[in-house]
């Protein structure tokens, strides 16, 4: 057969990716316009997009995006700087890990939000408490995935490397580190997603800037369009962050058979 089936065409491949989203946006647009849902609470998509666009033009939204992102990035970076080396140490020195593990389990089950009021009492309502709560929330997935990555290195690879005369330091650098990279990346992706989630909630609980603040503030003022603009912005940021990390992961761990994208 010379004609390619419909499922193989480029059109179909594009459609498969975007059809669901197009359908969703179409519903969002038409349902309020047809009066099937109350346009006061769900304005049509075009109205939200217009509002988003104009608040980006005026620069009002960028200010809040920047504030939220810089809090997230700072907290995430601190978490990375502490949890990654700590994870390596705990994964490498088993006895130390057995000693510390109960404490880790206790703290990790304590929600970051449960601790936020405490953070505010101790650190005030300024930037420090917000960065601190992101740091606290984001470090767990990094720490735990790094530990399990190091612990689950194939013992045969270690044996093989030892047979070629590698010392402890080279063993770590050339075998343990690359082999635990996929697990570490899972942790990083979880932590990045958490950083965005946590900052929104933290800003909703107590802040005078940032996207979380925009959300609650619009809700109080019944500025529904502005509220939806903030929600859409957050969704796009989440997508963007995940996309960045997945491409980085593909580059660094491309030797794996496949990389999950969620």
């Amino acid at each position, binding site marked *: 057969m010379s004609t390619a089936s419909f499922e193989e065409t480029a059109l179909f491949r594009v459609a498969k990716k975007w059809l669901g989203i197009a359908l969703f946006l179409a519903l969002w647009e038409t349902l309020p316009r047809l009066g099937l849902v109350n346009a006061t609470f769900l304005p049509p998509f075009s109205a939200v997009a217009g509002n988003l666009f104009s608040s980006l033009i005026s620069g009002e939204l960028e200010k809040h995006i920047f504030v939220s992102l810089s809090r997230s990035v700072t907290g995430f970076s601190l978490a990375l700087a502490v949890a990654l080396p700590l994870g390596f140490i705990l994964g490498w020195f088993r006895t130390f890990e057995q000693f510390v593990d109960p404490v880790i389990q206790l703290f990790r089950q304590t929600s970051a939000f449960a601790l936020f009021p405490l953070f505010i009492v101790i650190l005030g309502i300024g930037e420090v408490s917000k960065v601190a709560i992101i740091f606290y929330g984001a470090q767990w997935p990094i720490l735990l995935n790094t530990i399990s990555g190091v612990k689950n290195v194939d013992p045969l690879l270690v044996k093989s490397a030892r*047979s070629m005369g590698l010392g402890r330091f080279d063993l770590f650098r050339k075998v343990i580190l690359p082999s635990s990279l996929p697990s570490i990346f899972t942790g990083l992706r979880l932590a990045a997603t958490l950083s965005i989630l946590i900052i929104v909630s933290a800003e909703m609980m107590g802040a005078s800037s940032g996207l979380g603040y925009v959300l609650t503030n619009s809700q109080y003022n019944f500025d529904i369009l502005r509220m939806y603009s903030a929600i859409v912005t957050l969704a796009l940021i989440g997508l963007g962050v995940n996309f960045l990390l997945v491409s980085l992961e593909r580059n660094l761990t491309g030797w*794996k058979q496949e990389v999950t994208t969620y």
Partner: protein
Amino acid sequence: MSLIRAVGIRKVYRSGKRSAAGYAKETLALDNVDLEIRQGEVLALVGPSGCGKSTLLDIIAGLAERDGGEVYLDGKKLEGPGLDRGVVFQGYALFPWKTVLENVAFGLESKGVAKKEREEIARRHIDLVGLTKFEDRYPHELSGGMKQRVAIARALAFDPRILLMDEPFGALDAQTRERLQLELLRIKRDTGKTILFVTHSIDEAVLLADRIAIMTSRPGTIKAIVDVRLPRDREIAEELLRSSGSFIQARDQVWNSLKVEVEKAAELEYQI
């Protein structure tokens, strides 16, 4: 001339609960094993399962602790692993994040060879095992037989005095195994390497080895050594080799010696 000499090797496995009086269960795995590997020969180590043949290889490789005895290479006492011995494992043990070329060059890296020379030597050994077009592939893109060729190339690349092979073809399907056995004979002819080869297949041992060391069931000792005289020094049809009188004679000799041990090992398996 002996290249490797293992003298009085003893190994005890400790398992179960540990108390002040020691471990709950101590199993003598190797008892006073003496083994000599001559320069340039292929020595096969056969024995019933659980007799400690892999443990003995690990001890010679310096990868396992021993509870007694010494291993000498060229009369020099060995402590720990080193690049003077190249190990090939049953599970290939290739680094999945490295390409074929990088895997083969790995040992040269710790030997301190410069990058350009490393790649050159690695390429030569990739050619030797017949994987010329695959140097940029990752291990997961290769078949089991190809992976084991890479592992052999990697162990040969840093030019060890001896190749220690621990059931290297055990995980391969029958056809691939036979091809690789002949391939190993060819590599052996080309390089003249001394090889210690652990296997549970008598046929494999007879086909590949100049001498076969037969181990007893646990605790493992060397029971007998059988000389094999096959015309391996030239390219010869495999069927001829396998049906030759000396092949059959050596196989019978090994099997007669091993039979009792296999039965003993089977009984041991059910003892706690």
